[in-house]
């Protein structure tokens, strides 16, 4: 058993063509995700696919999610350098779009483990925790 996808909902009328394009532009340029439209049970949705085995489904709902805090999905990278490269890419994007929300973190140091992370949120209901885990 493994997590393989999330469904995230927006208020009715919000998942416009313009929003879909903005989401694709950000998550495509930063993370390399592919975005495309799909119908799910008769509803027009938008899929974000990091790879063929994982996806995020965006849909409209009369009862959308709200996450005013730091609820997030963790995106595990292979190395600290990859996390740093993604942070730099997010910072560059934020220079031209102030809707990019970035939260920098000190490393979390546990016995035998260091977690190197930042959070980023852009036009989706939740943050992403972009992190690496280094065994020490």
């Amino acid at each position, binding site marked *: *058993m493994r997590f393989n996808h999330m469904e*995230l909902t927006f208020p009715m009328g919000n998942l416009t063509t313009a929003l879909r394009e903005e989401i694709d532009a950000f998550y495509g340029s930063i993370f390399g995700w592919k975005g495309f439209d799909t119908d799910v049970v008769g509803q027009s949705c938008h899929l974000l696919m990091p790879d063929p085995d994982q996806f995020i489904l965006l849909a409209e709902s009369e009862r959308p999610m709200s996450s005013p805090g730091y609820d997030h999905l963790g995106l595990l*990278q292979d190395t600290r350098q990859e996390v740093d490269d993604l942070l730099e890419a997010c910072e560059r994007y934020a220079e031209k779009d102030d809707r990019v929300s970035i939260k920098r973190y000190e490393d979390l140091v546990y016995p035998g483990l260091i977690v190197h992370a930042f959070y980023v949120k852009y036009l989706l209901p939740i943050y992403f*925790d972009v992190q690496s885990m280094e065994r020490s």
Partner: protein
Amino acid sequence: MRFDHMELTIPVGSLTTTLRKEIDDFYGSIFGWSGFDMDVASRPCRLLMCGSDQFIQLLESERPMHSPGSDHLGLLLETRKDVDDALKACERYAESDDRVSIERRQDLAYPNLTVHTFYVNYLLPISFDVHSQEPS
């Protein structure tokens, strides 16, 4: 990059010893998850270890997540029978605890793929989409 965890927040004061035990009992007996306490950035947290190096962390927040609709995390199981067995286990649990919310779904049939699924929610802010994917 892979999805490796999700942080979910619940209202301050909610993450009691009783709730932790109830969550452990349900998700442990149905999915085999194991729960334990730890601090994350000096905040008390309940970790649910889900296997496959994936986990869910529960924290209290002044601004908790609210998800009254269909938002969910997808749990991919190996086979249709695994899904049916999990559904039966949820139904048995629901006989003694009416807080188990189960939504049965018709198979989603796509070209070359059939998704067999049900949704379940128990004491967490989002539902789980328990499913298998069968090439057809």
